[in-house]
């Protein structure tokens, strides 16, 4: 049995050098007795006796070095033997580390976790107290970690507190930043006397942020175990806060409702004045838009962000009607600003139409969708929803009085005419709406986006553009001729129609 004594202050190199020599000398885990220098009758790290090399150096995966770097920081006396055992076993089975259920691997993970947790708690529970100033502000902290983690954790403090000088003292070493230079020592430090008047503000905050009606002492202790309390200034308040909580809750329960303070009445009066009726005059587009904002005619408003009303000049000659707002439109509150809106914008501009001169709206004004995972998937509105929303569309047409309306897609066609026919049967025809207004029918731009076949999509997009170009030509003609007198049946072809 060989005794191997190490300083054991969290330095991987120390263990690695020893382990490599022992391994090369052909020593098996059970032949070694790993010790900490200064413990169990040992006075210091004893140099290993010269050992003859009997085999090549061990090979380990990168992941092992990461684990070893952490495990050597653990305070457990068995850590060196465990690492050597893993090193030994890894030579036969390179995949050993991915077996989380293996006894040694599980033990190593447990230690890794403990060290990481200790590091995390150090970043959380170190409390700096300000010391008399030099050229830079200077702070000192005392902390008692479970493991040898000062060197591991010091860079965190250096990254965070770069513009001040600081020193963290612990029984397992210390770290200091002086004018930007980080120094680390593994020698035990003594507890300094620290005081800082700002602690009083912190204690005030700690006591005030605590809610006595939600006492959960166990939850607190599992995250902030008692062993840390003696170095946390705020922990001194804990017993009184706990003891006083029931009385504070009881006092709240018994309190009678007070008469509101004077300023409450003043605020209420001013609010009434602010909220006096300032709605736009009825019969205008502004009034219609305002009324639509709070529409609850169908349940679609429950799941949507907002009403997406039509957009464009109040007296546009051309009105284009789509289906319903999509995800982006629902968020932005404007029609045709999403992916289909991009296709739409491109196509109308290629067809020579200025979007700013036309009125663009949808048959249904709220986004209908269903959740698919965490996305909102478009869902086609049903006849009832279209029916409810038609009221708004009719009002828009009545106020804008367009000479030509273009219905994009079956939903728009149904909303405008009540017709559920096939789009392709009516495309290219000049139809008539009630009131004598002319109607053209085309596809919805979202349909173009859904076509998987590139060639077909290109052809359909060209067709869409041609329909829009036809709308522009027809609009120019209609501008020169007055609107024909009302014709009762919408299906009757307009004069000169195809």
């Amino acid at each position: 049995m060989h005794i191997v004594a190490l300083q054991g202050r969290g330095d991987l190199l120390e263990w690695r050098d020893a382990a490599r020599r022992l391994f090369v000398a052909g020593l098996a885990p059970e032949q070694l007795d790993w010790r900490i220098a200064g413990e169990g009758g040992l006075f210091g790290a004893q140099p290993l006796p010269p050992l003859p090399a009997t085999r090549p150096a061990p090979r380990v995966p990168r992941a092992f070095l990461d684990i070893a770097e952490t495990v050597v920081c653990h305070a457990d006396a068995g850590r060196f033997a465990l690492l050597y055992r893993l090193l030994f076993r890894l030579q036969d089975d390179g995949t050993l580390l991915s077996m989380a259920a293996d006894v040694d691997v599980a033990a190593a993970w447990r230690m890794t976790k403990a060290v990481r947790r200790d590091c995390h708690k150090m970043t959380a529970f170190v409390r700096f107290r300000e010391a008399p100033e030099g050229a830079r502000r200077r702070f000192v902290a005392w902390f008692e970690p479970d493991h040898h983690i000062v060197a591991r954790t010091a860079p965190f403090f250096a990254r965070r507190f770069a513009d001040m000088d600081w020193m963290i003292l612990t029984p397992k070493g210390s770290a200091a930043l002086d004018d930007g230079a980080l120094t680390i020592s593994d020698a035990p430090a003594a507890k300094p006397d620290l005081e800082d008047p700002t602690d009083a503000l912190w204690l005030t905050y700690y006591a005030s942020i605590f809610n006595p009606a939600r006492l959960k002492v166990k939850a607190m202790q599992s995250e902030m175990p008692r062993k840390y309390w003696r170095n946390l200034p705020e922990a001194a308040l804990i017993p009184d806060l706990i003891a006083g909580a029931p009385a504070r809750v009881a006092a709240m329960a018994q309190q009678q409702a007070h008469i509101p303070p004077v300023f409450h009445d003043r605020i209420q009066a001013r609010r009434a004045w602010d909220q006096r009726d300032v709605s736009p005059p009825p019969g205008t587009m502004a009034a219609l838009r305002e009324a639509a904002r709070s529409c609850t005619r169908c349940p679609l408003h429950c799941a949507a962000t907002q009403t997406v009303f039509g957009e464009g000049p109040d007296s546009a000659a051309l009105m284009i009607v789509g289906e319903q707002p999509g995800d982006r439109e629902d968020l932005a509150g404007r029609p045709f600003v999403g992916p289909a809106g991009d296709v739409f914008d491109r196509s109308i501009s290629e067809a020579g139409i200025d979007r700013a001169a036309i009125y663009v709206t949808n048959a249904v004004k709220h986004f209908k969708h269903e959740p698919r995972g965490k996305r909102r998937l478009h869902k086609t509105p049903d006849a009832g929803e279209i029916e409810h929303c038609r009221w708004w569309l009719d009002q828009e047409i009545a106020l804008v009085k367009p000479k030509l309306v273009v219905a994009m897609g079956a939903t728009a066609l149904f909303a405008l005419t009540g017709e559920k026919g096939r789009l392709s049967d009516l495309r290219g025809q000049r139809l008539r709406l009630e009131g004598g207004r002319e109607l053209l029918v085309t596809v919805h731009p979202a349909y173009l986006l859904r076509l998987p076949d590139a060639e077909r999509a290109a052809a359909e997009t060209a067709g869409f553009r041609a329909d829009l170009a036809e709308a522009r030509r027809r609009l120019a003609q209609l501008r020169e001729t007055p609107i024909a007198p009302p014709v009762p049946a919408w299906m009757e072809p307009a004069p000169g129609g195809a």
Partner: protein
Amino acid sequence: MPRSLRERLAILSDAAKYDASCASSGTVKRDSASGGLGSTEGSGICHAYAPDGRCISLLKILLTNFCVYDCAYCINRSSSNVERARFTPEEVVWLTLEFYRRNYIEGLFLSSGIVRSSDHTMEQMVRVARDLRTTHGFNGYIHLKTIPEASPALIEEAGRYADRLSINIELPTDAGIAAFAPEKRPDGIRRAMAGVRLHIEDAAEPTLRTKTRRRFAPAGQSTQMIIGADGASDATILAASARLYGGYRLKRVYYSAFSPIPDASAQLPPVKPPLLREHRLYQADWLYRFYGFSIEEVTASGADGMLDLDIDPKLAWALAHRGRFPVDVNAAPREMLLRVPGFGTRTVDAVIASRRHRRLRLDDLARLRVPLRKARPYIVAEGWTPVRLLDRSDLAALVAPQARQLSLL
């Protein structure tokens, strides 16, 4: 006599404590290597815990608790006789920096009562964030509460300096908001959340010229719902959460058990906060976000849309779907392993990694920290088949936690 800073700190942190949000994680990495003070490194740090079990990560305060709104559930509503105070933006900046230097906190969570106008209030909050970032080179975490009615330019600026923005919806239904927070406009809240999502997504696109990404609230947005103030069921609450996650890509929905407040409104009799219910809602929320459950699946088994308080929602689902079990830990796909009671996401990862090398037995699972008493009836492992257990009618009693989880209260 004017109140001291310490007295006002007491009032304005007491006024802020009913906001459950405390996260300081999920933002971009920053440090002060090239100047300034502070860093953020992925996961946030809880610097202390109060005896209410909540973590203290940020300096959570109000700029002022004067408020022109009269929301029934709120300690700062205009009709409450709570003591009022205000900080100047400079005082908040000083407190944040001095607390930060002593490693008490990760950063600032600033909220405010609404004084004068929404824009005036938002402007003051943005000023604090701007001063911290630009004048003092502060690289720590900043969470700003957003006022829905504030002008888009102010929200834009807030997103430039803050890591996270949040707008509290407070109640799951528009009707609830109308009844308890008459001055709040639910559609305005939704529009503001939609605006923040659009800003975040636009900022993620590299700009055409410089190819750099602008910064806008890199830790995303969150919200809070108060539990138990109105009559909303868990199903209603969770459906609202799903809409918020789906619609506005929220990072978190916080659930805050309604807690009695001093000088409470007569509308809300003081009751013990439903902490266990809050806990179950968080569990259900987790199942939705990380375990592939839909909200309907989670809430279907409970009566009147309420989650079972005695057993966690995953166990409730498993008991209602015994036909889907037992699950073979050595063969089942990830989605199904995630549905086994007692299996967390990390356990599932470890099971999948380990079973590539050998067939797993119960003691292997024990080493992976699986609570076997809970999971055993639902799994098949090497040398273990639970058939009889699954058929027992008293299975719920067998696997339910033995001491009812009253410790949570």
